[in-house]
C-alpha cells in the first residue's frame, strides 16, 4: 500500500536496502559505465567516427565552392537527370550540396581512397542517407560539414534525402559511383 501512502518510516532514507537491489544497481551501473566508455574507445580504435569539422557558411558561398569543384573536375553528364558527373582526384576535397530536391553533383570515386567530403544545404534541412551502406548525416543550412570518407566497396550508391524537406522530398536522390582502382 505504501507506494501511495507516506513511507512507514519517517526517516526513510536510513532504512537499509535489500541485497537484491544493491546487486542489481551495481550490475546496472557497471553496464552503464561499459556503454559510456565504448564511445571514447571507438574514437581511438574504431573506424566510424564522425568528424566534428564544420564551418559556418551561407548558400551563396557554399554554392560557389560546389560550382568551382564541378567546373574543375566534371567528366560527364548523367543521361537520365542531366546531372554533372564529377571525377575528382583520389584523396582530394569533394563537394556535394542538398537543395530542393536534388543532391548535386554526382560523384565518381575510387575504392579505398580517402576523400574530404564537404556537405551543405542551399535551403532547408536535408538528410544525407547513403544507401545501401546506411550512413546517415544531418545537413543543416548555414553549415558546411567536412568528413573524411573512405569507400571500401565498389558499385553504385544512392544518397536518399531522409530529412523532410517539403512536397518533393521523396524525389530527392543523389548518386556516388565507386570504381575499383
Amino acid at each position, binding site marked *: 500500500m*505504501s*507506494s501511495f501512502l*507516506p513511507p512507514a518510516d519517517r526517516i*526513510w532514507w536510513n532504512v537499509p536496502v535489500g541485497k537484491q537491489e544493491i546487486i542489481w544497481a551495481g550490475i546496472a551501473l557497471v553496464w552503464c559505465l561499459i*556503454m559510456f566508455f565504448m564511445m571514447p574507445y571507438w574514437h581511438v580504435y*574504431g573506424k566510424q567516427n564522425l568528424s566534428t569539422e564544420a564551418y559556418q557558411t551561407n548558400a551563396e558561398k557554399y554554392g560557389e565552392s560546389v560550382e568551382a569543384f564541378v567546373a574543375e573536375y566534371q567528366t560527364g553528364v548523367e543521361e537520365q537527370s542531366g546531372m554533372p558527373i564529377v571525377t575528382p582526384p583520389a584523396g582530394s576535397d569533394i563537394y556535394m550540396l542538398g537543395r530542393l530536391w536534388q543532391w548535386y553533383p554526382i560523384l565518381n570515386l575510387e575504392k579505398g581512397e580517402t576523400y574530404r567530403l564537404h556537405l551543405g544545404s542551399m535551403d532547408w534541412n536535408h538528410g544525407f542517407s547513403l544507401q545501401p551502406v546506411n550512413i*546517415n548525416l544531418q545537413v543543416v543550412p548555414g553549415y558546411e560539414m567536412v568528413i573524411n570518407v573512405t569507400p571500401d566497396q565498389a558499385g553504385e550508391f544512392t544518397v536518399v534525402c531522409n530529412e523532410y524537406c517539403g512536397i518533393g522530398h521523396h524525389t530527392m536522390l543523389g548518386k556516388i559511383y565507386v570504381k575499383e582502382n
Partner: protein
Amino acid sequence: MARFRVCPDSGFYFDRSAESLMKVNAVAGVVFLLIAGLLALGVILTRWQEVHLLPADLFYQVLTAHGINALIFWVIFFEMAVLYFASSTLLRSRLAAPGWAWAGFALMIIGAVMNNVAVLQGNSSVMMTSYVPMQAAPHFYLGLILFAVGALIGCFVFLGTLVLAKDDKTYDGSIPLVTFGALTACIIAIFTIASGAIILFPTFLWSIGYINHIDAEMYRIIWWALGHSSQQINVAAHVSIWYLITGILFGARPMSEKVSRFAFLLYIFFLQLASAHHILVDPGVSSEWKIFNTSYAMYLAVLASMIHGLTVPGAMEVAQRSKGYTKGLFEWLRKAPWGNPVFSGFFFALIIFGFIGGITGVVMGTEQINLIIHNTIYVPAHFHATVAVGTTLTFMALTYLLIPVLFRRALFLPWMAKLQPYVFSLGMTIMILFLLGAGTLGVSRRHWDMDFTGAALSFEYPGTAYMMMAVGGIGGVLGVLGGAMFLIVTVGSLLFGKKLEPSAGLFQGFCGIPLADSVYNVEQPPRLERAEPIEHDHSGGFEAPGTFVLALALLVCFVVYYAINWDYLSSVWPIG
C-alpha cells in the same frame, strides 16, 4: 458546502474542484488521442507501400498533426490529470488556485485547437519538429506557446497544492512515492516548457517578420530540449503510475523507498540531457559534448530506469509472495489478474517499454551507432515503443482504474476492455519490430514514397524492406484497432456505463461538472497516516527472485543487441 467526497470503492478523497479538473483534462487528452489515432491510420496505410493511401501533401499534413496530437496534446493533457490526482487526491488536500488551473486548461485547449487549425489549413505541414528555416503559419507556433503556458500553470498549481497539503498537515511524514514521482515529472516539465519557450517564441516572431534569421542548428539543439525532454515527463509520469497501479492492485509497497526515490532523483538530474540524441550527426557539435550528453552523463538516467525496471515488478512480486503465491520463480506472475485490463495494460507497457523502447533508445543514442540509424524509420519505431506503448498504454490502464473511481461508471463492454491491452500491445509490437528492421535496412522516416516516383534518378530498396513495411503496416492497423477499442470502452462507459452510486449524470463526466452536492459531505478528510510499518528483514535470500531473473533477461538482451549494432557499424564505410 463541504469540499470533499470520499469514493466508497477506493477510499480516495476527491476535492471538488480537483475532481472536475481531472475529468476535463483526462477527457481532453482522450479526445486528442482519438484524433491522433485516426491520423495514425493515414500514416500507416501510406507507408505500407502496397496500399499507399494518401497523396504526398495530405500525407505530410496528416503526419504533422499525428505527431503533435499524440506526442504533445494527448500525453500532456492526461499528465495534468495525473498531477492533480497525485497531489490533491493522494495527499487528501484541497487544490491550490483552482481558478488558475482552469485558466491553464483553457489556454491549453485554445493552443491545441489553434495549432490543429493551422495544420488543417494546409500551409503548416512542417512536422512536429518544425525545423527552421522551413516556415509554418504564425498561429502554428502561437498555438504551441499558449498550450505550453497553460501546462506551465498546471505545473505550478501542482506545486502549490504540495505546499498547501504540507501547511494543512493533511498527511504525516513524507509525500508518498507516487507523488514524489509526479513531482519529478513536474520539475522536468518546467525545464522542458522553458526550453520550448526559449526557441518557439523567437520562431513565432520570425514567422511574423520581426526577426529575420534563426540559426538552423541552434534551433535544433534548443528545440530538442523541448522535444526529447517532454518525453521524459512521460517516463517519470508513467513510472509513478506503475507504482500506483501495483500499490492499488496488489497492495505492493516499494522494496525500498530510498532506492526508488534515488532513481527518480537521477531522472531530475540527468534526463534532460537527452536533447543530444538528435544532434549526434549534426555539424559543428563536439564529440565530447555528444558523448557526455547522449549518455545522460555516463548513463545515470538509464541506470535509474534499470533500477525502476527491477523495483516496480519486484514490489509486485513481494506483495504476491506474501499472499502465498510462492511456488517456483514465477507463480506470482502467472497468478496475476491477467483478465484485468488495469494489470495487463500496465504489465505490457512495462515489458515493451523496457525490452524494446529502452534498449533501442540506448543503442541508437550511442554517438557512433547513430550514424546507421539517424532519421531512418528505426527512430519512430523506438519512440512508439516508449511513448505509444510505454506511456500511452499505462495511461489507458490508469483510465480503466479511474472510470469507476472518478467518473462513477462501470466499464462499458468489459470483455472488450479485457481484450484491449492484448490487441493493442500485439499490434504495436509487430509494427515496432518490423519498422526497426526496415530502419536497419535504411528505410527513411517522414518519407512519402519508398519507390521515389518522379525522381530524376532511381533507387530501389531491397524486397525485404518492402515486406517489413507491409508487416509493420498490418501491425499498425491492429494497433489502431486496439486504440479504437480503448476509445469505445471509455467513451461508452461515460455514456452508457452502469451508474455507480453516488453517480454523475450523462454529460457530467464529459464536462467536468461535479456530482450532486449531497455527495460532497466531508469538510476535511482525516489526516493521511503513514503506511503500516513492516520488519525490514534483509538477512535471507532475494525477496523477489523471479523479478531478478527477468531483470537479468533484460540485461542479456541489452548486451547482445548492443554488440550486434557495434558489429553492424564496423561493417560500413570508414569515416572520420
